C-alpha cells in the first residue's frame, strides 16, 4: 500500500503530506511536482492511491489520471480541488478519478477522505451532482446515450444535488447506505465511459476516425 501525491504548490504539498503521513494505512507517501515526474513516479511506485492537482506546471493532472486508469492494478485517484472548481473535478472524474479532496479541509478530514476512497466510497458534493445531471442529460443529445443513468441513479443524484447526505439519501429512497455508496461509484464509472463514447462520437463526427 503506497500513496503518490502530485502537487506543485509547496505549502499545500507540505500540508497534505502532513495530513497523509498521520495515517499509517497510506504509507509510504511519495510525491511529485509536475506531470513528467508524476508519470515516472507512477511507473516506479505503482501506488494504491494517487492524489493529483489538476493545474500542474508542465501539463494537466488529467494526463496522470488517464495513465493511472490504464494501470493494473488500478490506483484510486483523488483530485486535489481548491475553491469552487467543481467543473474541473467533473473533468477529472471523466478522466477516471474516483473522487476529489478539498485543499482547505482539516488534516483529519483529508485522512478520512483518503481512507474512504480506498474503501470504495467516492466523495460527491451537490455541485458535482448538478454537473453530472447536466452532463448526462444534454439539452440536445448529440451523442448516442450508450450509458445513460438509470432512474435510480438519477434520483440519487437529484437528492445529492439538494444537499442530502448519503445516509439521508438512503433513508429517503429506502436503500442501504452501502448501496448508495456503490451507486455513486457506478455513476462515476459511467461518467468516465460516457465521456469516452462522447469523445469517440465527436471524433467520428469530425472525421478523425473511420467507422
Amino acid at each position, binding site marked *: 500500500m503506497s500513496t503518490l501525491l502530485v502537487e506543485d504548490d509547496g505549502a499545500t504539498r507540505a500540508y497534505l503530506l502532513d495530513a497523509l503521513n498521520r495515517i499509517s494505512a497510506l504509507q509510504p507517501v511519495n510525491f511529485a511536482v509536475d506531470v513528467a515526474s508524476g508519470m515516472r513516479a507512477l511507473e516506479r511506485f505503482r501506488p494504491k492511491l494517487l492524489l493529483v492537482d489538476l493545474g500542474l506546471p508542465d501539463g494537466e493532472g488529467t494526463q496522470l489520471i488517464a495513465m493511472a486508469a490504464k494501470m493494473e492494478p488500478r490506483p484510486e485517484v483523488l483530485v486535489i480541488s481548491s475553491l*469552487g472548481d467543481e467543473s474541473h473535478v467533473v473533468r477529472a472524474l471523466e478522466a477516471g478519478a474516483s473522487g476529489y479532496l478539498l485543499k482547505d479541509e482539516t488534516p483529519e478530514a483529508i485522512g478520512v477522505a483518503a481512507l474512504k476512497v480506498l474503501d470504495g466510497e467516492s466523495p460527491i*458534493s451537490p455541485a458535482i451532482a*448538478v454537473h453530472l445531471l447536466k452532463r448526462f442529460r444534454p439539452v440536445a443529445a448529440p451523442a448516442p446515450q450508450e450509458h445513460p443513468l438509470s432512474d435510480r441513479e438519477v434520483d440519487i443524484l437529484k*437528492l445529492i*444535488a*439538494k*444537499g*442530502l447526505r448519503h445516509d439521508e439519501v438512503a433513508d429517503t429512497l429506502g436503500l442501504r447506505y452501502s448501496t448508495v455508496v456503490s451507486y455513486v461509484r457506478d455513476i462515476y464509472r459511467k461518467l468516465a465511459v460516457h465521456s469516452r463514447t462522447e469523445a469517440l462520437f465527436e471524433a467520428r463526427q469530425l472525421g478523425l476516425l473511420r467507422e
Partner: protein
Amino acid sequence: MRALIGPLLFVIFGWMFALLVLHPTEITGAERLTILFDAEGAPVTLPVRESQHEAPLYRTSVNSDVGYSAPQAIYIGFARQPMQMRANGVPLERISLRPGADEIGFRQAFLFLVPEEVLHAGGNTLEFALKPVNVQDRPAQMGPKTLGLSEIWFGPRDQLEPHFRTMYASRVTLTQITAITALLITLFAALLWLARPSETLYGWFSLGVALWMVYLLHFVWYRAPLNGHCWLALIHIALAGSLLCVQRFCRQFLAQPRTRLDRFLALAALIIGVSMVVISIALPDTLAYQICLNGFIRGLLLVLGLHLVGTLLHAAYRRRDAQIYWLSAAAVLGLSLGVYDSAVILAVLPASSSLLFHLGVLPLVVVFGYILLQRFVALLEAAEAQNAVLDLRIQQKSVALEHEFSARQLLERERMLVDERHRLATDLHDGAGSQLVSLLAAVRREGMSAQQMEQALLEAIADLRLVMDSIDSMGSDLAEALGQFRSRSEPRLRAAGLNSVWRTSTLRDGLKLSPRRTLNIFRALQEALVNVLKHAGATDVQISARDAGSVLQISVRDNGVGLAPELMNAASQVPTTTPAPNGRTGGRGLANLASRMKSLGGYATFSTGYADAERPGLNVSLYVPIPAENETKW
C-alpha cells in the same frame, strides 16, 4: 406593328375558311339541269332566286342512250321550300341527315335517290312537287308563292352524295357548332358577371351573344314559334339588339363613355324594332312589311355594324393595343360576312352560295375568350409579381429585424456582462475582500494568534465560496443552491460540535432565483449560522426552507441562549448591537442580515426557538419574495 399581324391573319384565315369550306365546289361527272317546265309547259330557268311562280309541279327530263346500271341521284344545292320528287312517276327517297326537319328546308341542300330500275334508256321524266307550307310556320318571303331553287344536278349517286354531305356539314353542322360555342360563352360570361356584378361588360357581352343565339335559331330551328312574319321581324331585332350589346361591351372594354350616336342608334333600334313588330302583326304580307324588313332593318343592321367596326378601328388606331386589334379583326370579319350575305341575297353572288353572317358570332366569341384568357394570365402574373415584391419586402424586413434583434441581444449581453462584473466586484469587495483587508489591518496593528487568523481566513474563504456558488447556481433550482450551501456549511458546523438538521430539499423543483438574490440569501444564512456558532452556545441547529406561493421562508433555529426579548419585538426591526441584559447581543451579523432582507424586498423575524426557559434558543426567519417570473437575470 407586330401586334397587327395576328389579327390580320385572323381575318384572312377566317375568310379562307369560309370560302374554302363553306362555298360550294364545282361538281363534275354529273349532268346540270337548268330548265324546268311548269304544268303549262312554260320554261323556268334555274337558278331561281325568288319568283312568283306558284305552280305545284315542275318537270324536266334526262336522257340516256344506254340506260343506267348504277344508282343515280338528284342533288339540289339550295332550295327555299320543301319538295318531293318523282322519277318516271315513282316517288323518290330523300336522304335526310336531320330527322324531323325534313318538312321545311331553308337554304338547305337536298339529295334524292334514283334507283337504276326506275330509269330506262331514252328519256326519263323527273317531277318536282312543291309542298304547300302552312303560312303560320313560314315567313312570308319563303312562302309557297315564291320559288327559290339553285341548279339541279343529276348523276351517279357516288358522285353527288359526298358533295351533298360536305355541303350539309358546312351549313348545318357548323351552324350548330357555332350555336353551342356561343351558348357556352354566353353562360361563361354570365357567370363571370354574376361573380363580379360590378364588371357589367361581361353582362353586356353575355346578353349580346345570347341575342345572336336567337338569330342563330333561325338557322337551326325551322319551325317558327310565332306568326311567321312576326318571328322573322323578331330575329332581326334580336340581331340588332345583339349588335347594340356588343357595342356597349366595346365601350366599356375601351373604357369609353357612351356617345350621342350610341344613344341615338339604340333609340332608333328601339323605334324600328317596335314598329317592325307592330307592322308584322298588323300588316303582314304587305309592301310596308317588305320595306321595313329589307329596308329599315337591314339598313339599321348595316349602320350598327359599321358603327361598331368604326368604334373599334378608331380605338385601335388611337391606342395601338393588341386586344383592341383582335376585337377589331373579329368585328371586321363579322361585318364583311354580313356584306357577303347581302351580296348573296341581292343576287350579286350565285344563289347556291352559303349564307355566312350568322357565323360571324364565332370569331367574336373566340376573340372574347382569347381576351379573357389574356386578362386572366395578366392578373396571375400581376399577382405573382406582387407576391414576389411582398416576399422581398418581408425578407428585407425580417433581415432588418434580425439585425436589430441581434444588435439588441449583443447590447443586452454586454449590459449583462457589465452588470455581472459589477456585481462580482461588489460581492468580492464586500465579502472576502473586506475580510482580508481587516485581517491584514489586525495583523499589522497587534498581531493575531494562529487560531484567530485561521478563523478569519476560513471566513474569507467561505465567503469567496458563497460568491462562486451563487454564480454556479445560475440555472440551478434553489433547492440545489441550498444543497450546495449545505455542503459548504455542514463541515464547519460539525467541526464546531454543532449538530445540524437540514430541511431544505423539499422546495419545489424549478424554483430559480437570480444569482444576486441567491447570494444575498446565502450571506444572510451565513450570518445567521455564524451568529449561532459565535454567540448561541447551542448544540443543535435546524435549517429549514419552504415556499408558500410567492414567498420563500428560510428559518435557522437553534437551542442556544436566545436573544434579549426587546430585540425580538418587531419583526422587521433591525437588531442593534446594544448588549442585552439577559441574553446575547444582536451583533453586527444579525443587523446585516435584516438589512440584507430589506434590500431583497423581504424581511427577517427573530423569535424564540424553543419554549425552554433555560435555553430559549433563537429562531431567525428570512422571508424573501419570489418574483412571479423565475429570475434569469442578475
